């Protein structure tokens, strides 16, 4: 058991650290004294900072060298994150593009696509968004209804709605999954497209959450035209392309920070009655022990990465633990403070409002438990009623069922 770096990693870390030491004054200040406040300024500064990071090999480090990356492994990526956190500088702006969409294009895109899109993505000149989820699809990502029809001239016309997406408001491009053939089973009739976000017919609308803030967007497509060369991967083969994106998504979760027990403890310790209450102490202990556990689960996944394994879906359970413990912590702290804990400017009210939505974000807890039960424990799947049924028939059945 060794929490330390190998000599090679230590050297890599030193190199990153020294670059950051030298350049951190160039990073935008997003919090505390002297912080930027104007959203446009923040955006511009973060784009520029991502550009600096890319030049220095700290953005997209796992990308192959030919596309501007460093060709390093996931563990080096973790080291970069740790050092950036340590240096107190903001991370890259386009996490989705660099972490998931770029790698998808590298895997499935044409040479022309790679040449055109990867450079500006890496340097933050063009931000990307992911357009997979739809309101009617829910947990079933493959139940895409956004329709792409091919015209006689080979161009495609898109109609539909995407949701639960971020960054659209300043994204240049989106990677969009659309249905191109409704008459085959649902996984088979989809195609992946690159869409220009300022194309005519694209409308982005903020989707306000419980807190009142628009953490996500809805995007509407109304007769949006894209060229034939916007297709990524084979026509009607979009599901396979999407799976690549989802695989890269899994690599990016579970290593992050999350809620720390000490923060809740400080608030409780400041209230003498709460501090001496046996019930409060016990509840704090219980949720903190679990939060501590997932910190170490995080180290375990880093260690797994290090020895060449990809962390299994069971590490997704850390998210379940994190969300549920944070919910308990919010309830505990607000029970102690009382109604004032719920004041709009309270230290915990944003968290209390944010968590119920987080519970569903990135797949509901139920879906995650299914996946882990099946992939990790080897339990048999639910019977599937939608297998092999053409998508158009499925939709008709649903409408019938819901009306019954």
């Amino acid at each position, binding site marked *: 058991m060794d929490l330390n770096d190998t000599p090679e990693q230590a050297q890599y870390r030193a190199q990153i650290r020294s670059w950051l030491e030298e350049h951190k004054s160039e990073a935008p200040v997003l919090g505390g004294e002297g912080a930027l406040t104007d959203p446009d300024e923040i955006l511009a500064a973060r784009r520029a900072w991502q550009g600096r990071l890319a030049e220095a090999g700290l953005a997209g480090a796992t990308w192959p060298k030919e596309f501007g990356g460093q060709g390093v492994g996931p563990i080096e990526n973790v080291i970069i994150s740790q050092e950036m956190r340590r240096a107190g500088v903001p991370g890259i702006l386009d996490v989705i593009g660099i972490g998931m969409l770029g790698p998808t294009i590298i895997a499935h895109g044409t040479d022309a696509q790679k040449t055109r899109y990867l450079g500006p993505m890496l340097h933050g000149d063009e931000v990307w968004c992911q357009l997979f*989820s739809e*309101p009617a*699809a*829910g*947990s*079933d990502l493959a*139940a895409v209804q956004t329709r792409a029809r091919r015209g006689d001239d080979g161009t495609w016309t898109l109609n539909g709605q995407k*949701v*639960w997406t971020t960054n659209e408001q300043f994204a240049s491009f989106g990677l969009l999954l659309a249905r191109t053939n409704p008459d085959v089973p649902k996984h088979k009739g989809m195609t992946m497209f690159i869409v220009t976000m300022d194309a005519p017919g694209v409308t982005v609308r903020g*989707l*306000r*959450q*419980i807190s*009142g803030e628009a953490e*996500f967007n809805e995007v509407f497509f109304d007769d949006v035209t894209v060229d034939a060369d916007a297709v990524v991967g084979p026509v009607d083969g979009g599901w396979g392309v999407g799976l690549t994106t989802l695989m890269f998504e899994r690599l990016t979760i579970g290593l992050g920070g999350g809620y720390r027990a000490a923060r809740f403890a400080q608030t409780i310790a400041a*209230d*003498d*009655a*709460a501090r001496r*209450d046996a019930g*409060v102490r016990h509840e704090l202990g219980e949720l903190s022990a679990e939060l501590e556990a997932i910190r170490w689960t995080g180290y375990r996944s880093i260690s797994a990465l290090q020895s060449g394994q990809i962390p299994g879906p069971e590490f997704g359970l850390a998210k379940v633990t994190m969300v549920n413990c944070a*919910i308990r912590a919010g309830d505990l702290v*607000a*029970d*102690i*403070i*009382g*109604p*004032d*804990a*719920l*004041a709009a400017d309270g230290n915990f*009210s944003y968290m*209390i*409002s944010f968590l*119920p*939505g987080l*519970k*569903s*974000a990135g797949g*509901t*807890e*139920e879906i995650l*438990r299914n996946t882990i039960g099946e992939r990790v424990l080897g339990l048999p799947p*639910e019977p*599937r*009623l*939608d297998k092999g*049924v053409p998508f158009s028939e*499925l939709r008709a*059945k*649903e409408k019938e*069922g*819901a009306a019954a």
Partner: protein
Amino acid sequence: MNLELSDEQEFLREAARGALSRLKTIEAAREGLEDESARLDLWPTAIEAGWPGLLIAEERGGAGLGAYDALLVAQEAGRVLAGAPLLGPLPASLLLDRGGYERIGEVAAGELKAAWLPARPPSELEEAWTADPIAGMARPPAPAATVDGDTVTLNGTVAWAPDAGEADVLVAIGRTAGGEPVAAAVDAGSAGVSLEPGWRYDATRRLATVTLADARGTRLDVSAQDIAQAWYLTQALIAAESVGAAETALEVSVQYAKERYTFGRAIGSYQAIKHSLVEMLRRLENAKSLLIYAGFAFSDHPDEIAYAASAARSVAGGALDYAARQQIAVHGGIGATWEHDAPLTFRRAQLSRRLVGGTHDATDRVGEELLAGRGPAAEAA
């Protein structure tokens, strides 16, 4: 044994439902979060429906109904997240009626709006009468009171008192030097009374922090038991509101689970969703049973009021907490968006559990009563 509602009770409930249905309470709950002017004033509705006088004796202008009748109204208000003026006025009316308040007729008619300043009865671990604190877990003592004949002089602060900001007359509970509680009717506009109205998170609840500095009121001739009953009536009313809100959350969620499909099946056919809806039902049914118990205690077994009303609030509070979170979860991402109604239930649940002692304290009280050997006698009937 007949626990069905009487015809009069059915009528009372339907009338409340009807009156509330004519108002856009849910819309007001949402819009009120950003625009205070969008909030509804339900006092006219309350007057029309006769709620202010519900618990006041008929000979003094009231309807002379019982606590369970009031719970039926509160449950209906909860169903549509209405900010009905009940938690402040009804316990106040109980003490004013029993205490020989002169202008009780005006209170019953709703011409004089009354609200009480809740005081928590002592327990083994907290031996004084206390008020809700502005913040933190330590409860301050109820306002200090000196009694001189019919006049009571009060000093102290009571935070987060429901409906107190709009009241004409406050029923304040003071604590004498000997630790005994005393109730007084205090004119809200009189010297030494300062009211700081406010709200938190749930735009349907009007709250106020009231500071009394040598404020004078008229002594009400009520016992410590009466004052305790006002506290437990408030607990039971919050329980009933919570039952109503949880009931709607269940109905809405069941409907959605039947209509929404994923992987070729209605989501309600999946055990994870189905069992969580059944858990909502289980908690709700338990809470309903305890509302009946609380009503029975008020009408037939006053020595079980503390136990029954606290149990009702404890279980109903848990039922609403669970229902509010599950309603969001069953609806997936859309359930956590501003335009959806589920977050309004969630806001209601979050604030309710921290008012008038809080759900947690009600649960403790159930334990307190049992540990002191004051649980229910034996089987009824």
